[in-house]
């Protein structure tokens, strides 16, 4: 293979996420954005990023850590702004990809009406939520993506409510494609982004994105934590076509949930033995198995 050599500067300039960005060490966004770039094969998307850590990542004007045209939207508006951008691209017969890159606050909470509406209209948008289960930008408050029991700055004694099942909500919109992404499963990640890129209409990707700062975890543990989350069954890797064809990508392998929980001090004193989580994991998998059996994706190439 003939690989053209490039200077560092050229490589940096071309990357979707350039060096010098402000992500904390071990932030799930860093790997997520790099793999998004790789899966798109260097094609530059239009990025729409609401208020969240992801827009701080860009750095201060006039620098841009994003190597793609990027619009910072208001907190709740990424799918609306992206609807305008992709509508005009379609009107002008441009085959571009418009990506919403948003946190869980912008997705599960303040932006959910806008998101639901864009999904219902089946806008031609690739929506990626990096779910760090917390409001990172504002210093670590709860969101409706924060798991039950977890301590945040606004749930100092642990959150009493359960995490919202955003995948189920998006699947219920019968969008062409919805899938979960893991930064510990590179091939699966790249393949799903490519499927999403090839699909027209509204596509929703949910990335469980470690936030060492908010999770009170060690930066070098991020990939291992997500690996454990997938293996223990807490974060299922699966994909759903048109809201009715399910495919489970990775099944739990008996890894104890403690392997995920013990490395994060946000769980300290709440779920020390992980027993409370086991029931949730069982329930989640019973439901997912029923759906995947009744509505299999077989016959549809991924």
């Amino acid at each position: 293979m003939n690989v053209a050599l490039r200077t560092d500067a050229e490589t940096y300039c071309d990357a979707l996420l350039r060096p010098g960005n402000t992500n904390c060490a071990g932030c799930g966004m860093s790997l997520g954005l790099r793999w998004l770039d790789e899966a798109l094969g260097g094609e530059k998307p239009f990025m729409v990023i609401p208020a969240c850590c992801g827009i701080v990542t860009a750095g201060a004007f006039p620098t841009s850590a994003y190597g793609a045209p990027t619009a910072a939207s208001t907190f709740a508006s990424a799918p609306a702004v992206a609807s305008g951008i992709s509508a005009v691209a379609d009107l002008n017969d441009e085959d571009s990809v418009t990506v919403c890159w948003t946190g869980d606050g912008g997705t599960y909470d303040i932006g959910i009406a806008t998101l639901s509406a864009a999904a219902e209209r089946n806008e031609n948008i690739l929506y990626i939520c990096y779910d760090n289960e917390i409001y990172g930008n504002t210093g670590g408050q709860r969101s409706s993506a924060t798991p039950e029991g977890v301590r945040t700055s606004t749930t100092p004694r642990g959150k009493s409510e359960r995490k919202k099942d955003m995948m189920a909500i998006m699947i219920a919109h019968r969008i062409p494609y919805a899938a979960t992404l893991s930064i510990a499963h590179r091939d699966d990640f790249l393949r799903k982004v490519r499927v999403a890129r090839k699909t027209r209409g509204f596509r929703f990707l949910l990335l469980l994105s470690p936030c060492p700062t908010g999770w009170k975890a060690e930066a070098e543990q991020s990939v291992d934590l997500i690996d454990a989350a997938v293996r223990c069954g807490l974060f299922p890797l699966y994909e759903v076509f048109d809201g009715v064809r399910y495919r489970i990508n990775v099944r739990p392998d008996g890894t104890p949930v403690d392997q995920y929980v013990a490395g994060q001090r946000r769980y300290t004193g709440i779920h020390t033995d992980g027993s409370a989580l086991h029931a949730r994991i069982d329930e989640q998998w019973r439901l997912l198995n029923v759906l995947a059996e009744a509505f299999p994706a077989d016959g549809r190439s991924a």
Partner: protein
Amino acid sequence: MPRALVTGNHAAGHALAVAGEANRCARGCAGGAYPITPQTEIIEFLRDYSFTRGRIVPVESEHSAMGVCIGASLAGARAFTASSSNGLAYMTENVFAAGYYRLPIVMIAVNRTLGPPWNIWVDQGDSLALRDAPWLQFYTESHQDLVDTILLAFRVAEDPRVLLPALVAMDGFVTSHTQMVVDLPELSQVDRYLPACRVPHQLRRDHAVTFGGLTWPRETERHRRDIQQAMEQVPQVLAEAIDEFEKVFGRRPHGAISAEHTADAETVLVACNTMARTLRGVVGARRRKGERIGMIKSKLFRPFPRAAILAATAAAKRVGVLDRNHSPGSGGIFWQEIAATLHARPDVLVQDYLVGLGGGDVTPQIIDEIIDDLARRTAAADPVWKEVAA
């Protein structure tokens, strides 16, 4: 131009649609649509229009309607929407964003009382609440004024010297739901009048920049100052747009303000929207009786045309402002601007009248009473509440 008997909403829908369609040879047009009384017919008109290269997105809220306009404009299209009252309030965050982004979006505001308590009648408090947003604001007195101003608004907003969004207001029901004979612009005329919409900072695939990311105080100060300087260009750009309008349409639209009988007027009344039409009748009748009275129809509110107001009040000793809006703890919002403008003229008595709030019918008789009250005054007082019959 075809003359037609149409409602204000129909006229506005038509003007937006032909302006959007006129951009078909460039990047087309787009906008968001969300209903609210008394604006709804406008977005229905737009949804029904067959654009060659345009899409009106039926969104779930006004906040998203402006969000779609922001995205479409960032992608280089001509973008517009319409709203009223609580819709404008709900949209507010993105109204500011659109201006700070320097996007030449045009929005129709059909003035309606903010609630709750719910009241669908006219009150300019909804759009005036957006006066501190980086938007041009125009207030229109008739269906024709409305149509003409919408076209002027696109031309001025998209001018590279301005590049700011523009709001065009009309009175709820009094304008939106009544019919008048209007010269409706034809597409071929608008094609000649509006240059292709060009957003110089349009997002481009090969241009990696982040719009709207973080800025430090220094850049923020510059950004705000640039906006102020752009605002200061508006009177000149508007004057040129009016000249050009006359060449294409054969009619001269109203300017930033209409100063009527002010050359020798010791008493000057100021009003906007349809109140200005009622005022015109009263002022005309009083002049025929020999009174040295004049009026200012205030169309451009942002930027506020201070120089024009000062010139039109050169002979004035008393200025009365009719405000169909209320800024609690202060008074009328037009009055605040007029009083600030006439600060350099301590010899002029400036009196505010809060009148027609919540849609009360401002009749010629009420305006006569206001003028009589103004004549009796020896010094300005706090804003006067002039109640009207139910």
